Structure formats: structure tokens, C-alpha cells
């Protein structure tokens, strides 16, 4: 189907089903129950799932295939957001031109940064991208925000004001981002018994775009171009002596992944018409690295899993507090209960980043293939256990 083989088609279908049914899947607990705080099916969070999914899918095209570790991808995300908000300010709140411009501007920006950074490889490349991203952050935060020339509105962040031109804006259109009149914020609430589900326009726009981008990523992975990118990672020397020029291949991968990041940034602005410099900081670049590695770099589904995993647990962990912990451990004797809460306390709430850092280290050390490899290992282990005999040889399947 769609030029994919059977395995990839089923992967795409699974992703499509999961994203389209996300409002149900993420809200497993009845609305009024004590567990309802662990529901993740509200529009804001669901949008973040798929937007960061797009970001990570794009990052993986560069890092997963070529092995070039960029520490500056957040710059493209930020540029995308700024471009989109400018479109809102100048034209109208329609998201189509905003998203289109964010992709184009991110592509140009990535072309420039990539052209310079890719003159070096390895660790130099990582540091160059890092330097570029920090420079972009400084530019956005202060340099390009002065009375004479205010492109980014500095600390406050770029937003739409009432006196902006918005030349195509009509009174009949919603006063917030919309798709030809359909507001991104409009949500249909479905109540079934005690359960409540939100169907949000913005989420579904992002979800559809993510599926398209996921599909494109599969095509790229399976194409001769994708194979060349893996060749770049594997042996550049051999590539050079096989009549292939690695640099345009890597640059193309860099620009494509920059466009994915720009698209994600544009969508972020489309969900909430605001763009701030902090989106470009290198810790934000680090976040997408974490997502990709955690899920499984170089695999198709890994980055999506990683993005979902991190955003979900960020949300859940930040909500857990000591009171909840005491409820969980209340079956234990008092002293032990307090002790358990004391032990777990640093890792929850504001300690989420500590948990994330530890988790990330563990993954890099013990599970370089990320969650996908973990899943495969678990699958193999279960299968071998099922067979119960030593006759089965574990075959190492290449990670998908």
C-alpha cells in the first residue's frame, strides 16, 4: 500500500490507529475518579505528543541515519514558531500560510547552518551546531529585539497584537488560529457514562500532519537516499572511494530534518500563537536528542515512542506529590511508609528531570537501541521462554 511493503504498512496503520484514537486511549480513567489526574487525553498534552513526535522523527532522519549528532535542532523549531507568528501578525490567523512559511524559513536556516557545520564531522559538528543554536538563542532573546528592529520581541515573546495588520482577517473568522474558519481550540466533548473524551481540532490537524510526516520518513528510510545516509554513518572513506560525495547527502538530511523541526515549531505556534526564545535554548535541543535516543535512534517508530514517553511521564511525574505517595504506600507500616516516600520524593514533581537524566543514562549505557531494542529483547526472551528448550537459536534481527 502507498508504495510500502507489508511490514511498513502495518506499522503505519498501527500508528494511524493510535493517533486517531488517542483521545480514548489516553483517557482510560473516569473523569471524576482519583486516577483521573493520570489521564493524558486533554488537547494541550495530546498536541504536544504529536508535535514533538514530528520533531523527533525529523531529528532521527539526521541522527539515526547519518550518525551526525546535532545539538542545535531547537533553533529550527524556534525559527518555525517565529515565522508562523509573523504570518499571523501580517496575514491572518489561518494556519496554512503560517505552517508553510515556518517550513520554508526553517529549510533556509538549516541550509545555512548545515552548510557551515557540515564542513566538520564528529564532535566538531556537534559543537558547531551547539554554538549556532546558542547564537540563535542570543539573537532571538536580545539582539533582534530592539526598538529599531524588533523581529522577536525578546523576553516577552512574539505574539499577535490588536494593531497588527492581519490583512486577510475578517470579523467572521475566529480571533485565534484557525483552518479556514475552523478554530484550533474548538473541542467536541463526548461523555460516555463516567468517562469524558475530548476531540480537539488542533490535535487532529497535528495528528494528520504527523502521520503524513511519518509516512514520508518511512519512504526516506527505504529509499536509495536513506541507504546512502546509512552509508555515511557506516564508512565515509569507502563512500568517497566509491564515487559518492557524502557532504550533499548529509546536508540534504540536515535540511530535511530542519524542515521537520520547523514544521513542529510552526504547529506549536498554530496551537498557541506565541513564540519565545527559550524554545531555541540548547536544553531544548537536548530534549529532542533524549526523545530519539530513548525511543531508539535509527528506528522508525522509536522517536515517536520516545517523544510520547517523555511528554507523558513529564506530565504524570510532575503531578505526583507527597500526598499521593502516602496514599500509594499506605499499606506499609508507618515508618516504612515515610521512608519510601522519602526515597521516592526526589524523583517526582519537580524532580522529573532527575528521573529523566537517570533514565537516559541507563538507556545509553545498557540499551543503546532504546525502547525499541528493549521491546525486541523482551519479545525474544518471552519467545525463548515459551519454547522452554535450548534448541531455539536467538536470531539477531536488524532493528526496525
Amino acid at each position, binding site marked *: 500500500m502507498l508504495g510500502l511493503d507489508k511490514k511498513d504498512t502495518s506499522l503505519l496503520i498501527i500508528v494511524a490507529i493510535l493517533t486517531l484514537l488517542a483521545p480514548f486511549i489516553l483517557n482510560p480513567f473516569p473523569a471524576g475518579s482519583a486516577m483521573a489526574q493520570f489521564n493524558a487525553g486533554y488537547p494541550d498534552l495530546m498536541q504536544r505528543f504529536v508535535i514533538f513526535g514530528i520533531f523527533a522523527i525529523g531529528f532521527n532522519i539526521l*541522527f539515526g541515519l547519518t*550518525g551526525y*549528532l546535532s545539538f542545535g535542532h531547537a533553533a529550527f523549531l524556534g525559527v518555525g514558531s517565529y515565522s508562523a507568528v509573523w504570518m499571523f501578525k501580517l496575514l491572518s490567523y489561518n494556519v496554512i500560510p503560517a505552517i508553510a512559511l515556518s517550513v520554508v524559513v526553517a529549510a533556509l536556516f538549516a541550509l545555512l547552518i548545515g552548510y*557551515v557545520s557540515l*564542513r*566538520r*564531522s*564528529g*564532535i*566538531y559538528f*556537534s*559543537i*558547531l551546531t*551547539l*554554538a*549556532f543554536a*546558542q*547564537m540563535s538563542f*542570543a*539573537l532571538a*532573546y*536580545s*539582539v*533582534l529585539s*530592539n526598538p*529599531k528592529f524588533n523581529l522577536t520581541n525578546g523576553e516577552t515573546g512574539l505574539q499577535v497584537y490588536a494593531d497588527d495588520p492581519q490583512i486577510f482577517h475578517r470579523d467572521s473568522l475566529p480571533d485565534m488560529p484557525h483552518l479556514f474558519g475552523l478554530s484550533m481550540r474548538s473541542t467536541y466533548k463526548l461523555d460516555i457514562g463516567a468517562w469524558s473524551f475530548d476531540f480537539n481540532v488542533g490535535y487532529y490537524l497535528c495528528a494528520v500532519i504527523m502521520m503524513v510526516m511519518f509516512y514520508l520518513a518511512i519512504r526516506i528510510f527505504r529509499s536509495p537516499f536513506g541507504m546512502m545516509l546509512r552509508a555515511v554513518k557506516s564508512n565515509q572513506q569507502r563512500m568517497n572511494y566509491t564515487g559518492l560525495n557524502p557532504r550533499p547527502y548529509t546536508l540534504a538530511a540536515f535540511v530535511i530534518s530542519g524542515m521537520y523541526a520547523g514544521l513542529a515549531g510552526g504547529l506549536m505556534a498554530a496551537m498557541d500563537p506565541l513564540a519565545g526564545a527559550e524554545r531555541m535554548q*540548547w*536544553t531544548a535541543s*537536548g530534549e529532542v*536528542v533524549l526523545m530519539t*535516543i530513548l525511543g531508539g535512534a535509527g528506528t522508525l517508530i522509536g522517536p515517536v515512542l520516545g517523544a510520547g514517553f517523555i511528554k507523558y511521564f513529564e506530565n504524570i511525574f510532575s503531578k505526583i506529590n507527597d500526598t499521593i505517595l502516602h496514599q500509594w504506600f499506605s499499606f506499609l507500616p508507618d515508618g516504612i511508609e515515610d521512608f519510601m516516600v522519602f526515597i521516592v520524593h*526526589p524523583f517526582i514533581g519537580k*524532580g522529573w*528531570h*532527575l528521573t*529523566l*537524566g*537517570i533514565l*537516559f*543514562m541507563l538507556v*545509553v*549505557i545498557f540499551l*543503546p537501541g532504546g525502547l525499541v531494542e528493549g521491546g525486541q529483547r523482551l519479545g525474544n526472551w518471552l519467545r525463548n521462554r515459551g519454547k522452554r528448550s535450548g534448541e531455539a537459536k536467538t536470531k539477531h534481527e536488524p532493528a526496525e
Partner: protein
Amino acid sequence: MDAIILQILNGLDKGSAYALIALGLTLIFGTLGVVNFAHGALFMIGAFCAVTVQRLLNLSFQTVDETQKDFLGNPLKVDTPYVEAWFGPEIGAAIIDWSVPLALVFAIPIMLAVGYAMERGLIKHFYKRPHADQILVTFGLAIVLQEIIKYFFGANPIQTPEPSALKGSLDIGLMLGFDPNAIIYPIWRLVYFTFSVVIIGGVFAFLQFTTFGMVVRAGMADRETVGLLGINIDKRFTIMFGIAAGVAGLAGVMYGPLNPPNYHMGMDFLVLSFVVVVVGGMGSLPGAVAAGFLLGVLESFASTTWATTTIPGINQIIIYLVAIIILLTRPRGLMGRKGVMED
């Protein structure tokens, strides 16, 4: 002329910090071949050693002083630090006052231990893994370390003042024969600069004049051959990592009075220090030091009102701009050697 000297002096303190961190980074690159993204965290831990010492020295017990009354007429509770009780009020107060320099003594064993634990516990297992993995795992470690510090010390910057004897400023202009008040320079900055020069000189002398240093230098040039000679180079490299951690930590201890430490100061310095290393030339110790001071001074020149009015915000981006230009024209950096980290 005096304005130029002032800007050079202003750049020296940041430059010193860059140079010290970059020196450690380069030592680790050169000896262990590892890209350590957690090096900034070591700087930060050093700064928090000073915070800890300051807090320990200020540990107090309460006594009720019947001679003094608060505004309600109740006897006043007075906190007396233990050190003042033990050593007498005057010496005790002096000890507390000098807590930052005293923290150096406390920080040295701590930093060596942290460095040793890091190398033996984690970095050791990554020598043979790709650079990307090294970056990733040390990046993870940096997050963990900074979150731990945040957990114990909170998110806000903590004041760690310099000893009152070293507060205030010197009129350096007057000493150099300029008009009075032309070049006013805080004493602690001068102390910091001198301190970093001593440390840098110490590291260089150590590498230059000791057998240990000779082996390490040989190992930096050609690790395999030195290994073949039957010298236990790994053990020496572990010690080297400890030293690099110590240098970063001591740089952090002394930096507190210039800028109150917070948990993310390490990350802030790390990015710039990497740029410094790259500009200086990966694997070149003199390059790292020279580039550290150079970029510090450049940053200070870019911060003058003249520069910022000509190009707004130039002070924020000057270092990156310079780094990019240098890397494009001299890909190996100012003093880089061929073949370092180029595979």
C-alpha cells in the same frame, strides 16, 4: 589607552574561568579521548563546595541572651556559630569570613574523589564507544548532577561573598600612571585571575617537569605506543581525570564571589568552554588557555557601550561568531594538531 586596559582587565575573570574549564576539557580529550559534557557540572559542584563550607561554618546553636530584649520585651535568642564558640568570637568570625578560600582545602579531596568516581564508574566504559555515545552519557550525567544540586540547594543563586579584606576595588589606573579613577578594578577579580594563572602554571609545570607528566604527554601524542611500552597508562589517565575535575572544581569554588552559584551555571559555562576548546584547537593545552583568555577579553570589549550601540547585542554572540569564523578558516583551531578527533 586606559579604556582598553580596563576592558582587558574586565575580560580576565571570565577568561580565567573559560581557560580553567577548557584546560580540563582538553586534558580529558587529549588523554582519554572522551568528550565530557559533564565537565561544566564539575565546575558547578566546585562552586557548591564553597556554598557547603560556608553553611557548615555557619552552623549555629541558639542561646537566650537575657541582657538583650526584642521589641516585645522577651529575651533575645542569639545564634552563635559553633566555630565562634570553639575558637573564640574573633577567630571564629574570621574563619567564617574566609569561607570561600577555606573551601579550596575542602574542595580538593572532594573533586578528586568525584573525578575518580566518574572515570572509574562511568567514563571508563565508554572509551571504546562512539563519540556520540560519550556525549550522550555525559550529557545525561550533567543533567543528573545538576538536578541533585538543585534538590539540595534549590533553584536560586546563593551568595558566597569574598572575605571582607578582599572586598572593594583597587585603582589600578593610578598605579599604572593614569588619572585616578580611570581604571577601577575589584580586588577579587584580581585574586581570581592570579589564582587561575597559578593553577594553569601548576598544571603545565606538572606535565612538563614530572615523569608522570611526561608519560601523560606521550600518551596524548600516541596512546597505543605508550601502552605497548608496558606503562599502565590507564591508571595515569584516571589520575589525569581527577586532576581535570579538580581544576574545574577549584575554578568553581573561587568563582562564587564573582557570580552567585546556581545549579545551571555549569551548563552555561560548558557551552562556552566547548567553543573555547574548539577555537583553541582540540587537544592543544596552550591553545585552550590562550583561547579562553582571548575570548573572555573579546567578550568584554563587545560589552562596551560603544560596541553594543553600534551592533546591539554583539556581546551576546561575539564568541560564537568568532568561533564560527575561526573554524571555517582554520578548521583545526588556533593551535590544533592534525588528527585529533577527526575520525
